[in-house]
Structures are given as C-alpha cells and as structure tokens.
C-alpha cells in the first residue's frame, strides 16, 4: 500500500511540475506587459484619408468557414459572400460609416413622386475583367436570374411580394435602368447593393440549365468575369486556401490616377477555429484577425513586437439568446408539440421576463468574453451608438433574482413542498430540456451559464446540446424542443430582420410558420414591419422600429444575453487601414502593403510610375 501511495504522489508531483509552469500566479502582474495606451476604436468618416499606395504584395487572412460555392446568385452564406462581394459589385454599396447607400456601379438613383418608380443611372466606364463592357443588360440579366424559378435564390423572396409580385426592371438606354416596384420600399437603394453578374458569361449556363450547380468549389478565374477589385483564382481544397487575384480592369483609380487595387493577391487560409486563426496571426502568417475577448490578454501585449494594432469596433451585431417553444400546434399524431402545462409557462410573458431577470449577463461578459462585451436586452444593442434604429430606452433586465422569483410566484410557480424546486399549481415540477448546438464554444458556455442561472431559481434543467442539423430539424420541422440557445447575426437595418420577426416566417423560431399571429403583440410586430418598409421618412421609420423593440423588450420572445466587442487585429504593414463601424477593410481596393515596391501593373494608365 505504501508503494501505491508513493506512485500516486509521484504521479501527482510530476503532473504538478508540468502544470505549475503555467500557473499565472496570484498577485503578480503580468510581467510581459509592454502594452501601452487605450484600445484603438473605429475611426470617423472625416478621418478617412487614403494615401497613394504601392502596388504588389499579398494580404493573408484566415477564415473559419470553407466556401461551398462561388455562385453569387444561389449561395448566400457568408462563406460564399466573403468572396463574391469582392468579385461582383452592386449598383450601390453600404456606406461603412453610416450604413446609408453609396454609389458603386450606379452613379445616382431617384424615385418619382409615387415612390414606386426608380430611375438608376449606371457608370459608363466599367468593364468586366474579361474586357466586355458593363451595361444595363447585365443588370436586367441579374434580376431575371434572381426571379428565375428554376434557380434557387434567397434574394428572390426579399424582393417579391406576398402574392408573387415582382419588380419590373426595364432598360432605358445602355446605362440607365428603370425599376418599377409593387410597393414602396424604404430600403430599395440598399437592396440595389445586390451583386450584378455578367450576362455574357452566365447566360449560356442559365439557358443550359446548369447554372444552379455551377461555380462550385472547383471554379477558377476562367469561370468568372467580374467588376470587383479581386477575382477568385482557385480554391485549393487539399491545402484549404482560396487565392484571389487582382482584377486589372477594376474601374476605380487612386488620386494619382493609378488603377486600383494595390494588392496583387488576397489569400484566404481556412482554419479549424478562432484559436488556430489566432496562432497563425501571432506567428506572423496572416495580416488581419478577428480576436475573441478571451484571447485579448495574450494579444494586447504583443502589439508592438508583432507590429499590429488592435481595433475595438464596438458591440458585435449578433448575440446569443435564449428562447422557449411557444408553438401551440399539434403533430400528425394529434399530440401537442409542447406538453400543455409547459406551454402555458412558456407562453406566459411573466415567465420569460422572470427568466430574463435571472440571467447573469455581467458574468457572461466578465467570464466568457473576458470583460470585452456588452449586456444586451433586445435585437439591437443599446450600447452601439452607430445604430440609428436602436432604441436606447428598451426595458432592461438587470440581474435580479428577487424580481424573477416574484414574477414566477405571481404566475403560481413556487416551491410548494419545500424541496427547493419550483412547482406549478397542479404540482408539476418546473423542469424542461435546454438545448443548443455543439461546436460553438461561446454559445455552449452561455448556455451552461443560463442552465446554472435557472437552476438557482429552482427550475430543473436537463441540458442537452446536440449537433447543429439535429437541432435545426427540431426547430424547423419536428418542433419537439422546449428551450434553446441560439445566435443570429444582426445588422443596423431592422428590415433585414423581417423574416425573423414576422410571425409567418421560417425563422420566427419560437413559433414559426404561423397562419395567423397567435398573440396580439406578434400581430402588431407584423404590422410594424409592413409599415416600416413602406415609410420613406427616416425619422418616422425610426419611431416604428423603436416601437417594435419596445414590444420585444416587454415580451422577451428572444431573451438576449450579451454582445462581444468586435475586436480586429491588423498588421501595421498594411496601409490605408480605416476601420469603420460597418466594415473593417471596407476600402480593400485601397489597402496596400507598405514596402511592396512593385511597379504599377501594365494595365494601369500609362506613364504612371507607382507612387513610392
């Protein structure tokens, strides 16, 4: 027995020696802190002053999702649009400082008095990368393809009416297009940012019926003609990298008249997770990296030696949130999707409010986001000053277990038999299954925190994370779930969320595909979204969306938790970096590699040596 103990002690000592090397120690300040000053924040539009750059070089960026396709019409995931946005310009683009529409392939656009007919004037100096001129025909072809029923396209629904109404798109002349809408649309100019595709290249594929599956991951530069600054050269799935090369016929020039973009190449390296991406950045292999709050203490001290700058760009658009199944429907076997007594809790506003009060958002920010985050109470974060439509007076549910208990008691949920657990009037224990998807570390931890928070209230939680598609098939098809933690990315334009908040939609996750809104407040949200999109006056729209957030705040169908700070580290070797609230490298065509001294490529206007 003595030997056994000796062995155990030895093993423990060996392991301690191993693990002790990394004990960060108590009361000891980090001694490698060479960091100085405050974090860089997003700049303001007035400071945006690009300089003449040098040509050449490659920018490297790590990305977590692999592109499934480079088809700008059929694929809408960010893993595709990261690339297609650089290739296919829209008629307009979003101003990175204000989120207002800005000219791109169109020079101007104006509505008639009815607000239904818009005339859009196109640039006449744009050519596709293969030399063909860009014209109104490409615009017409793009919208034809979007409306083509044989081609899956998610943009179609956004620009179609409930009864299949469409926009009519007509060619006025080679560089003028007229859009006739079926109803007034406040975000029409934003919708014009949809990428325009080359008719002369894609039309044969559409006619042959092969377009829907064309431009997969084996597409190369030969398969595209683009207007944007970069073009996908090839996707090497074996080594997991996407090469994008310079479009020599890109239409923009710099102040000196040299043809942009400056960079020769952008390389996207696909990595497993954000920590792998971070190590690549730390080892100097990549030039830009979105930092997680938990990695910040490792990165901040390296700013100088690693020659990079970390920008804090305010609350991220997305947040993890908790929601309960409020579906009143029944399955094919006649059984209700949700056990009736549980459904009664979940549909009770007080229950959701109580849960909201019980969530320790400060802890989520401190522990999971390493103090680099913001509590969030509604779909738009009140802490983000750049969000024009964010309601600053949303109801806030600051951590308060007493309020939570009082609300639960009001609806009859209290500990009736002294076991520390809550029961309802009929004696049912307040217990349910909480789920989320595996594979997202932050979300898992938020869900674990929520589980523990709710158990503190005396609820009995069965925590059961599952694979993403298993979970989604429950949320979307079989409805046999009770409570779920999910995350969605949000944007500054509320109407993009219409397909979540309208009660008849697929993404109305707490009770999707409702034929008639099941509550008065859901009906009102439906009305507000219909009003909001038809209202062309920005101030009035704002009031409409304030009202919507007010309702969501009171009803808590989604119980939001916290939004992480958007942190980006950018290598100082990149020039013309002006991170904006709505775009980090929004001016990618002007970004250049300092010290790259390549001459201006041949296709640039003659006589212009590269700015040195």
């Amino acid at each position, binding site marked *: *027995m003595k030997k*056994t103990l000796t*062995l*155990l002690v030895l*093993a423990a000592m060996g*392991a*301690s020696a191993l*693990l*002790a090397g*990394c*004990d*960060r*120690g*108590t*009361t000891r*300040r*980090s001694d490698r*802190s060479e*960091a100085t000053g*405050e974090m860089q924040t997003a700049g303001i539009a007035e400071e945006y002053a690009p300089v003449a750059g040098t040509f050449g070089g490659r920018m490297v960026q790590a990305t977590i999702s692999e592109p499934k396709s480079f088809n700008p019409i059929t694929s809408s995931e960010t893993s595709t649009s990261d690339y297609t946005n650089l290739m296919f310009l829209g008629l307009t683009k979003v101003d990175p400082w204000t989120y207002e529409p800005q000219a791109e392939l169109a020079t101007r656009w104006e509505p008639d008095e009815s607000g239904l007919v818009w005339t859009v004037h196109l640039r006449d100096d744009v050519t596709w990368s293969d030399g063909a001129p860009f014209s109104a025909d490409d615009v017409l072809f793009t919208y034809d393809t979007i409306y083509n029923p044989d081609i899956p396209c998610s943009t179609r629904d956004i620009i179609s009416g409930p009864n299949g109404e469409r926009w009519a798109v007509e060619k006025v002349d080679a560089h003028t297009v007229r859009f006739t809408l079926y109803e007034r649309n406040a975000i029409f100019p934003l919708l014009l940012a949809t990428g325009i595709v080359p008719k002369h290249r894609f039309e044969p594929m559409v006619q042959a019926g092969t377009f829907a599956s064309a431009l997969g991951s084996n597409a190369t530069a030969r398969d595209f003609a683009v207007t944007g600054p970069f073009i996908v050269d090839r996707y090497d799935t074996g080594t997991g990298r996407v090469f994008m090369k310079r479009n020599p016929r890109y239409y923009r020039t710099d102040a000196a008249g040299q043809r942009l973009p400056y960079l020769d190449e952008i390389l996207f390296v696909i990595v497993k*997770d954000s*920590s*792998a991406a*971070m*190590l690549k950045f730390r080892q100097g292999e990549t030039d830009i990296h979105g930092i*997680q*709050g*938990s*990695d*910040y*203490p*490792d990165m*901040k*001290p390296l700013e100088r030696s690693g020659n990079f700058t970390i920008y804090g760009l305010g609350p991220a658009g997305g947040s993890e949130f908790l929601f309960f199944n409020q579906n009143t429907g029944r399955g094919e076997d006649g059984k209700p999707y949700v056990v009736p007594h549980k459904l009664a809790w979940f549909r009770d506003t007080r229950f959701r409010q109580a849960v909201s009060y019980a969530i*320790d958002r400060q*802890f989520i920010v*401190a*522990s*999971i986001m*390493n*103090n*680099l985050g913001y509590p969030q109470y509604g779909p738009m974060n009140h802490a983000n000053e750049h969000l024009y439509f964010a309601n600053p007076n949303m109801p806030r549910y600051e951590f308060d277990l007493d309020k939570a208990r009082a609300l639960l008691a009001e609806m009859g949920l209290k500990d009736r038999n002294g076991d520390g657990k809550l029961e309802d009037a009929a004696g049912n224990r307040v217990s349910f*299954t909480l*789920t989320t998807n*595996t*594979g997202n*570390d932050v979300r*898992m*931890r938020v869900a*674990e*925190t929520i*589980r*523990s928070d709710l158990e503190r209230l005396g609820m009995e939680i*069965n*925590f*059961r*994370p*599952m*694979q993403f598609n*298993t979970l989604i098939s429950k949320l979307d098809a079989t409805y046999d779930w009770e409570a779920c933690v999910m995350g969605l990315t949000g944007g500054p334009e509320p109407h993009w969320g219409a397909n979540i908040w309208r009660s008849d939609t697929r993404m109305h996750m707490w009770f999707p595909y409702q034929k008639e809104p099941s509550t008065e407040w859901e009906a009102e949200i439906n009305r507000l979204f219909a009003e909001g999109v038809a209202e062309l006056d920005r101030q009035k729209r704002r009031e409409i969306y304030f009202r919507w957030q007010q309702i969501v705040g009171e009803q808590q169908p989604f119980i939001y938790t916290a939004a992480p700070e958007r942190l980006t580290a950018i290598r100082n070797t990149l020039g013309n970096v002006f991170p904006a609230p709505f775009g980090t490298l929004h001016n990618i065509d002007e970004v250049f590699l300092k010290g790259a001294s390549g001459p201006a490529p041949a296709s640039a206007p003659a006589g212009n040596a590269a700015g040195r």
Partner: protein
Amino acid sequence: MPESTENAPQTAASAQKAMSPWAMVWRNLRRHRMAMLAAKVLLVMYGVMLFDGFFAPYYYGDESRLHSYHPPFNLRFFDSEGRFHLRPFVYHSGYEFDPVTMERIWVEEDDKAYPVQLLYRSEKPTTILFGLVETHWHLFGVESPGRLYLLGADFMGRDIFSRLLFAARISLTIGLVGTAIALTLGLLIGGTSGYLGGTWDNLIQRFCELLMLIPGLYTLMILYNALPANWSSVELYFGVVAILSFIGWAGLARIIRGMVLSIKTSDFVMAARAAGVPTRQIIVRHVLPSTLSYAIVSASLSIPAYILGESGLSMIGMGIQEPVPSWGNMLQRGMNVTELSRHPWLLWSGVAIFITVMAFNFLGDGLRDAFDPRTIGLKGKKAE
C-alpha cells in the same frame, strides 16, 4: 517496471500439482510486482470514487462565479509575513481586470485567511455512492467564502479537483459496464457460433464482420445523435455505454469463436461429445470455462478502450453532458489551444485518464502472464 514471468522458475512445477488453477494464477499474479501495484492503485481509485463526495471538498456543481478560472495551488503554509503554519490555509481571493491588457489579476486578501479543516461539515449537501447517499461531511474543506482550489477552477469557478473525483463515477464505471456487456455478448454469440459451426457459424460471423465493417467512430457519432433529446444524464450514460459495447462486442465474439473452434477439436470435448453430453452443457461446462481465462485477460485489457472511447466522444461534445463531469468532457475546453495555454489546469483529467489506463494495462499484462498456459495448466490440453 513490469517483471516478466518468463523466467518463472521451472522448479515450481512440482508444487503446481497440489494447487488449484485459480490459486496458481493468484500466485503468479502476486509475483508480478507492477500488476499488483496497478491493482492497488485501482483499488484506491475505485474506493475514492465510491466516496467521492466525501473526499472532494465541493459538490461537482458547486460554483463560485467570482472565482472563474481561479489558478491552482492556492493552499498556503506560509502567510504574507513569512510565518509558517502547520495547518495550511487559503486566502480569500478575487480577480480584477488589467485595464489595458484585460489580463485577470488575482489578488489575495491577506487579512482573510481560512484554515483547512479536517472532517469539515459543509452548508450544502454533497453525495456519495453514486449519488445514492447524501452527506454534509467532507474529509477536508475551508469555511466559505474561502475557496480551496487544489487544481484550479473552471470558467464557472467550480473546483477541478472535486469534479475530477466525481467524474470517476462516469469514467471508471463505463469501462466495467461496457466490458461486461460486450463480453457477455461476445462469449455467448462467439461461443455459440464457434461451437455450432456450419451455417449458423457462417451467418453469425458474417453479421459480426458486417458490424465491424462500419468504422467505429462514425457509427458512434451517428448513433449518439439518434439518442432521444430529452434523455437525462443517467439515461445518456447508459446510451453511451450501449453504443460503445455495440461497437465492441463483434471483435470479441470473433476471437472467442476462433478459440472455441480449436477447443472444440481438443480431446476433452471430443470425449464429452462421444459420451453423449448435450451440446448446451458442453458449451456451458467445458467450452466457456476454457475461454474464461482469455475473457478475463481481454476484459481487463479492453477496459481502457471504453474509457478512451467515452473520453474521445465527450471531447468532441458527444458524451456525458454538463453539468455532470466526466474526464472526457472536462477535456473538451482544452481542445482550444489558446484556452489551453491560458488555463492549462484544464488538462488534469487527461492525467487521470492516463493513470487509469496505465493501471489497467499493467494489470491486464500481469493477468495475461499469470494465466499463461506455459506457467500453469489451465488450458493444458492445447498447449503441449
């Protein structure tokens, strides 16, 4: 170091006649120093597992959010003035964020010391004997709000040492239960198959092969996802064991069938059959006991596979779920390299897995040597 029994003195041969086979196995095993050591280590571990709540200072779900990611080894013998205390103590501690780097800075308040108390009675109850018995007693502990973190804390401020002990409930039993199921199935099906031979043998063997054809990890993943979503952690545990042994039994059955095949043709079975002993009796009385030694050895050697299987599944998020700890799901966070380099104490459960697996390997090795027909005559007929 494992002591090989290859050089077991042949002089013992005369003594062997007087001993029963089991006694001989025991004697051989006792000679195997490392195997005995391993057995003792395992005994200690299983003992601690049974009374986990008593040995652990905290219940596995006991969190303290102000101590999120508390570093390990906060037990002190010397106070801030350098005075030695025979009775170790912990300082009350908390963290703040460095305003620039957001590094957590842990500060110990040296006016608030909490001595470690032996046989400490806690406010909150804990459980022992697989959660069947509730108790308030701990072998040691500190007064709240002092927190004792021998091996550090996880993100909810839960004590990793305590969770390590509670996790043994899952990780140490899953091997036994899984092996028991797989072995029972393997012995019955493999034994039957080998003994009956002919068409039955053919069918059973093809079925086993079929099961083995489908790669294990993938089957595990897919089957795990097919488990009902509302299962509690206990049900999930048995679900995982069932899946693991579903993968495991076929291989075992094939090997046992092979052994039975050669035993079948051995003299004593031939004799029994000639004497008209019923088939079932031959299987149960003669064939199975002869394979039992193999079964025991292979069982002790296959236990690690179950422990590793559960850990692997849990690591990729498909095992026992939070808040119930298992050595595998405690490692899950460690898959993130940056998380690991900031909080390497998340690796402790890997050390626990390693020690357990090594102990089972030593024990299995010792058993194999102890059962070796060259040193004893258990399977005598075959080994001449």
